[in-house]
């Protein structure tokens, strides 16, 4: 994490750490743009913090609200952009984030077979495996086997629906609310929601709260 301008300009690194070729290029480019007055370190810090602030806890709050508030759930299923705006979440250049509801009869899992499209405003940057060719090519062909490798066993009578993000629309999976959570508050529910459950490669159990990162 880069928290202030001092850390931005003077990173806390081991004394014997040598930057890689690309790390050196990035530092040179930033310094050059700052020296020429194209950007300031304050602006750079602002963008970095904006990016660092995006993480799966935002999506988890959306899921918890959808579980807790049936009217909100209807709104997010029919108008993602509008419902997210209610929570102060803006999509910038994205056209929309569509919510896919997992039920007893259908399990959604999201991929971008062409590159790495991902609901960044809700989950932050995608994990490495999501961008890997292995995941992208296999999940559209043998989704049940891929899900099994993630520890998700989808019953034979449940349809697996793989959703490929090929356009400027991103997808959020609304996982099935686990039983035994009826009395939980929205904040407690949000603690249960994992990143993978919002991609479709994970399920939620009441015990997952202890292991959620």
């Amino acid at each position, binding site marked *: 994490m880069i928290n202030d301008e001092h850390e931005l300009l003077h990173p806390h690194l081991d004394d014997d750490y040598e930057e890689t070729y690309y790390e050196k290029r990035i530092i040179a480019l930033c310094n050059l743009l700052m020296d020429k007055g194209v950007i300031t370190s304050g602006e750079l810090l602002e963008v970095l913090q904006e990016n660092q602030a995006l993480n799966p806890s935002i999506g988890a709050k959306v899921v918890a609200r959808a579980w807790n508030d049936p009217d909100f759930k209807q709104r997010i299923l029919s108008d993602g952009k509008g419902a997210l705006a209610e929570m102060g979440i803006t999509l910038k250049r994205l056209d*929309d984030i569509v919510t896919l509801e997992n039920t007893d009869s259908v399990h959604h899992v999201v991929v971008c077979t062409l590159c790495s499209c991902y609901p960044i405003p809700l989950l932050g940057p995608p994990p490495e495996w999501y961008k890997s060719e292995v995941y992208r090519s296999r999940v*559209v*062909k043998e*989704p049940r086997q891929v899900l099994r490798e993630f520890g998700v066993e989808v019953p034979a009578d449940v*349809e*697996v629906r793989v959703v490929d993000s090929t*356009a400027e*629309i991103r997808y959020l999976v609304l996982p099935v609310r686990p039983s035994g959570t009826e009395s939980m508050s929205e904040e407690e529910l949000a603690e249960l929601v994992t990143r993978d459950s919002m991609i479709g490669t994970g399920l939620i159990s009441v015990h997952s709260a202890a292991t959620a990162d």
Partner: protein
Amino acid sequence: MAPKYEIGQRVKVLMQVPGGTIRTPFFVRGKKGVIVASHGPVGNPRELSYGNRNAGKVPLYGVSFHMAHLYDEDPDILTDRVVVDIWEDWLVPNIPERTDTRPIDREEHGLSYYDRRIAALGNLLNAKGFMNIDESRRLVAELDYERRGTEHPMVNHE
């Protein structure tokens, strides 16, 4: 541009290989699916990739494909699907194929009327020396080749 297709309509993705940045994955090109979502008009990525920001928007749809129709192997579970967002200019209506595989009795359906007209016309033009049988056969073969070729048109790379 109003959307041309409705949810539930059967469509086929064009099998084409245009240049530029396109967002239609290869694994669904030439495949048949069903419209399951209508996202409204969205900027066309191919035009945008050429810097053409005034190209106008094209309706975008979520198209659902049965896994069983996408790959040669038989999947274990027949219910599974892939949903892919596809721009309207990549789609054509998919008219359901005849499930009855018995050959049509052309005589019974009155279709032999045209067969006979064609045969008569061919014979007459041949007799009058306007064409010969070999020429006619060559033209038929060319047409047949073109008909099969339209499934996979070559698009000019500008």
